């Protein structure tokens, strides 16, 4: 019996399985946000997409994929969310990637630096990125995993003076600098001059237990992720895995704040 449904965003009425719909030879079907086998019968009200091999889903298909997983109300909060990331090294390049995968609507990426070979050990870059500004390289990586993300970039060195104007329109800011003096100056500048809530990384060097990395609400608008003790020094360098644990904490706290949960 014929049923009404949507295929590639257009209203259709027919009967049969997904395979009977016109589509390129290679690729896969998405039905109501989930991958579906070609022999699945088409049902009343289905939202069906065919994603050709090697292509990203359209913005509408991607929105449906996220909405089906998270529930529409959670997806709506994520879509409206704006998060800024200050510094695109081992922490920031991964925070950006996690938030892009989660489906945050808009990210601001700020870094003055370019990718060099020594970054590849713990930062989310590849050989093809060498010499490129980290803002551009990260923006490309994010676009390759999330076709509807709005990415803004600023290739500048952040100072106590320019930080408030750069970040004040972002309710959530992830601090991902390297030097403790820069972290402190940034936190002071934003807490004193903006209404941003900050999520900072402090203490993620060495090979100590990953379980020592925590998230703590240190002040009203300041969350600290890290072990808060292990500094970078001779004999205690940064390792990709432990830095990524800290980046995961920061990205996850940003997600919780977006969804309205302020507890660490």
């Amino acid at each position, binding site marked *: 019996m014929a049923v009404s449904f949507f295929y590639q965003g257009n209203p259709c009425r027919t009967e049969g399985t997904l395979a009977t719909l016109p589509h390129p030879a290679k690729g896969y079907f998405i039905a109501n946000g989930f991958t579906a086998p070609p022999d699945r019968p088409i049902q009343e009200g289905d939202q069906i997409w065919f994603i050709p091999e090697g292509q990203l889903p359209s913005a509408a298909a991607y929105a449906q994929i996220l909405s089906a997983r998270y529930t529409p109300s959670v997806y709506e909060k994520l879509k409206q969310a704006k998060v800024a990331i200050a510094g695109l090294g081992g922490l920031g390049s991964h925070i950006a990637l996690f938030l892009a995968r989660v489906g945050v609507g808009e990210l601001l990426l700020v870094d003055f630096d370019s990718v060099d070979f020594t970054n590849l050990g713990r930062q989310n870059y590849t050989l093809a990125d060498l010499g490129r500004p980290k803002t551009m390289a990260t923006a490309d990586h994010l676009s390759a995993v999330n076709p509807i993300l709005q990415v803004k970039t600023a290739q500048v060195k952040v100072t106590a003076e320019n930080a408030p104007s750069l970040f004040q329109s972002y309710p959530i800011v992830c601090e991902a600098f390297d030097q403790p003096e820069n972290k*402190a100056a940034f936190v002071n500048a934003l807490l004193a001059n903006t209404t941003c809530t900050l999520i900072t990384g402090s203490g993620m060097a060495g090979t100590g237990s990953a379980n020592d990395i925590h998230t703590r609400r240190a002040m009203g608008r*300041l969350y600290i992720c890290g072990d*808060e003790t292990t500094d970078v020094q001779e004999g205690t360098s940064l390792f990709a895995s432990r830095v990524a644990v800290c980046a995961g904490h920061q990205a996850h706290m940003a997600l919780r704040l977006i969804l309205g949960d302020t507890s660490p």
Partner: protein
Amino acid sequence: MTVNGVSMPLKTAITLSEFLNEEQYDLTKIAVERNGQIVPKADYDQTMLADGDHLEIVSFVGGG
């Protein structure tokens, strides 16, 4: 007063600057909240600590 959740007797009238120096904090690596408000670095010298103050002092370590 209370510092990072720990009760501390305030013996004499003292500025925030003097307290931080006494406790050997590196002023370039910290942020200080007093009674729920961030204290701008420029105000450390003029901020007199008072009985009943709640201080939250965060010290940052490197790596990112």
